[in-house]
């Protein structure tokens, strides 16, 4: 009886730690990514320049990503960020935001391992692999000349 209680107690504190880690991770990833997006937007408004070809309002709202409109590859985003191009900074924030759940699943994987929950550690890892596979789908779409 006493053993059971202390076991429950131990489980409770472990759960407490893992949910605390997850909460901190989620809150800070939102704050950091939205902060970067806001910074990029303010820079865009102040300078009046996107760092790329803007054209008129209509071309601005209908533009798909390209070398001249806005970056959407990691290298081009990074080189744009280094030269303080507002649209590249926004894209960096968006990229961090959309990768948050990737990191969250990886974190969940380690939490399940820590809790010695092998089956669910594997499930969490498979979800992470599926997420990584989604990025590979971009190549498939490009090969099919759809994107």
């Amino acid at each position: 009886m006493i053993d059971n209680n202390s076991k429950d107690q131990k489980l409770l504190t472990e759960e407490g730690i893992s949910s605390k880690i997850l909460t901190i991770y989620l809150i800070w990833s939102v704050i950091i990514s939205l902060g970067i997006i806001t910074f990029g937007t303010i820079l865009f408004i102040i300078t009046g320049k996107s760092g790329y070809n803007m054209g008129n309002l209509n071309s601005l709202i209908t533009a798909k990503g390209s070398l001249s409109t806005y970056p959407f590859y990691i290298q081009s985003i990074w080189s744009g960020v280094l030269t303080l191009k507002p649209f590249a900074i926004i894209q960096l924030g968006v990229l961090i935001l959309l990768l948050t759940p990737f990191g969250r699943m990886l974190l969940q994987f380690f939490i399940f391992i820590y809790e010695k929950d092998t089956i669910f550690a594997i499930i969490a890892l498979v979800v992470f692999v599926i997420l990584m596979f989604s990025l590979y789908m971009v190549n498939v779409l490009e090969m099919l000349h759809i994107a």
Partner: protein
Amino acid sequence: MIYLIVEYLIEILIASILAGIIGALGGLGGGVLIVPFLTLYFHVPISLAIGASIVSVIATSSGSAAAYVRDKISNIRIGTFLVLFTTTGAILGAFIEHVTPVKVLFFIFGVVLIISVIPMLKKIGEEVPNVEKNDPLAEKLGLYGEYYDSVLKREVKYKVTGVKPGAAMMFMAGTISGLLGIGSGAFKVLAMDLAMRLPIKVSTTTSNFMIGVTAAASAGIYFFTGDVNPFIAAPVAMGVLIGAIIGTKILVRIRSSSVRKIFAVIILIVGLEMILRGAGVI
């Protein structure tokens, strides 16, 4: 010209805040109204609207999930197991979006909007469902659980049934999410409520955990194919998050179901507009 551009940016921001508030009050999440707003009133191409919306879904989901992780009501095991199916569906959905004609997308969006109003009007899962026996798969994976219900003032133990039909419905919810750039929380809750007979509190909080991970599976595809336009995505992500925060604060104060009905009507009208646009009438 820059004044015109800044004015437009602020207009999108305000519309997104509104969408976030309405989404939170209707229990639907902000994403569901963003695409109609952007396409019908701001003349944004639908793929770019979907790209901006899916990014905002991740922002709101991560923001509110942080609050839900602590409460212990959400069932992380069920959530982790079911995102296997929603993420796979989301990848398929994003793929379908890239090969579907624009008019068809408008039409599907309108139909989905109208369907998602149903659970808003018909209150589902008022009581704790009585499930006699766990599904063998649920037994094996240990999906059953318990939580403290603050209204009933007692520990509620629950069992889980219908894991396979539930998983199939989750795959469909994921496909809708990836195809239309919405969280499709309503469909996830329906799957957990109808097929798996989970208590409504567990369904809603677990669904919130799943929305962000599901959205990430298609958001990557939209981003790296160049469908996330920073000029649109930035005000939408900021606006929906602000709106969701305001909406949740209002929600604590008003509990009347008549408010939900007003928002249900708004969503119905927007859904009809999307169908009419799809049909080429407007």
